[in-house]
């Protein structure tokens, strides 16, 4: 068990390292950073000066270790645009996105889990069809468009909700709803599929044969087994939502990490982009490790490996 997690942790660290190398390399590919920094009208001499100043004249490998070394100390460099420390920019924006992603995930789970369970229990009934219809629609609707439709209906026609910004909780309603549609269908399908498999399993037949009441059969015996893959999916989804909130944040002008990334990409502010990619992949890896731990709690076969 412990050995298993040490191994997982090792692989996770290696993954984070690889991602940081890739995102570092990717952004150096994009052209001459010194030229960008110096601006359009700079003379070659000025560009060279900046190149030396920022250490861009050294080899890629040396530059990477420079960056990684200071990143370990919590120093992610400075924004080329505002000269603010990147670490502060990110820690300032991350809570907003985190709130948005977590509440979207919770909303998705609160809707998808019961829906998936009921769809499986009442298979081929109207509720099953409705759930599947919703899943088909949910996985096909473009989120930016859905956001605009929400804005039009609830922000403009009925004037119920504020349409942009992130100052009050009411501002979070439409972004949360929009973002949750990105993960809700998968969670619903997976819960339904897992429940159907569990309900067909012998141990559930056994539970019926023991005279247990339906609630005990469905929730004690079937759901716990069906939940295992859903936990993993939820963790992955949270990681996905943190990175995928860029679309929703830009439509609703939410000042999160997504819009920071978007703005930084548009103005070629590479230290910021690179650090965001790194931080998000780090969070993702932590989340998957966490989901493994939760699964080990639920499933003794993993725990007692």
């Amino acid at each position, binding site marked *: 068990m412990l050995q298993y997690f040490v191994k997982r942790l090792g692989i996770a660290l290696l993954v984070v390292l690889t991602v940081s190398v890739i995102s570092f390399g990717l952004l150096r590919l994009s052209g001459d950073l010194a030229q960008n920094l110096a601006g359009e009208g700079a003379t070659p001499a000025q560009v060279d000066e900046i190149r030396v100043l920022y250490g861009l004249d050294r080899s890629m490998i040396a530059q990477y270790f420079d960056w990684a070394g200071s990143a370990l100390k919590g120093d992610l460099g400075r924004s080329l645009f505002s000269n603010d420390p990147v670490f502060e920019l990110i820690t300032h924006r991350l809570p907003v996105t985190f709130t948005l992603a977590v509440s979207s995930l919770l909303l998705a789970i609160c809707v998808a889990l019961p829906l998936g369970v009921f769809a499986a229990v009442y298979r081929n009934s109207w509720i099953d069809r409705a759930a599947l219809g919703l899943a088909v629609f949910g996985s096909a609707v473009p989120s930016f*468009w859905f956001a605009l439709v929400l804005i039009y209906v609830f922000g403009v026609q009925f004037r119920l909700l504020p349409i942009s910004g992130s100052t009050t909780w009411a501002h979070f309603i439409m972004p949360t709803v929009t973002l949750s549609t990105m993960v809700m269908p998968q969670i619903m399908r997976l819960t339904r599929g897992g429940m159907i498999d569990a309900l067909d399993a012998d141990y*559930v037949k056994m539970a*019926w044969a023991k005279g247990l009441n339906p609630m005990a059969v469905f929730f004690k015996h079937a759901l716990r087994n069906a939940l295992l893959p859903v936990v993993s999916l939820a963790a*992955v989804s949270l990681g996905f939502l943190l990175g995928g909130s860029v679309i929703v944040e830009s439509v609703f002008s939410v000042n999160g990490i997504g819009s920071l990334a978007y703005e930084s*990409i548009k103005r070629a502010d590479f230290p910021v982009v690179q650090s965001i990619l790194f931080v998000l992949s780090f969070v993702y890896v932590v989340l998957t490790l966490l989901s493994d731990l939760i699964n080990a709690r639920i499933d003794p076969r993993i725990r007692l490996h």
Partner: protein
Amino acid sequence: MSNAPAPLDNMDLPMPSPRQQSWMMAKHHVGLQIGALIVLVFTIWAVFAPFLAPADPYVQNLANRLAPMIWQDGGSWDHILGTDGFGRDLLSRLIWGTQVTMIVGFGAAFISGVVGTTLGMLGGYLGGKIDAAVIFLINVKLAMPGVLIALSLVSIFGGSLLSITIILSLLFWDRFAVVTRTATQQVRTREYIAAAECSGASKAWILFREILPNISNQIIVIGSLEMGIAILIEAALSFLGLGIQPPTPSWGILVSEARDTMFFKPHLIVIPGLAICILVIGINLLGDGIRDITEPQGRN
């Protein structure tokens, strides 16, 4: 209410051939038929866009901006769905946009399918270090925030049809790899693979002639799923201005350009959005339907 099924032992019934069975099921599978119809219609739009579009999608006519749709007051047959903020014919832009959408969606699904399937089959069949490397690659891919990577790559390499297709295909190979790897592992242990190995068939022969046909169902299903997602992400990237570049009529751009006028001309947003939605639903229904009719036991 009791959901517990009893084991139904094999009853020996006269069985039609698998192909006949699939055909019989297809005739009763409404989802499959709707999906096939939607995909067919949009494919025709995409292929015959030059003949179907009533007007040039790029010609601006500032005198005739935001013309209403045919059934609204003042609508005319010249512009069935009206015109956009630059006076361009919406229907024509929609039809030409189908071409962009289908090329990017199909291209990205195809390339990522080839990459992912190759990796997954190699990992699943060869095992050992190669498999470990494939798993590691998949983990790295999963840990990268896809949409942000795509946005950065587009900002670096530009928003041409080709670069968008290639960039998107870099995002989607992982699911192909995961599924084909597992499927290959399962197929690998079957007797007919052992038989082929014993008869001296080469690894390449076994991979392509023995394993690939047996996992092609799953590849088609993932392909349809990824094509839908690719279409959605292309639209999102174009909407954000870091995808296909205007004035090329991508559906995402149509929505983005109509934002300024959305409060008094909502149809300019609703129609392209619905088009995306319907096409993706059609592709997903088609994929699910193919899975249902080709492997009945896989239904749930």
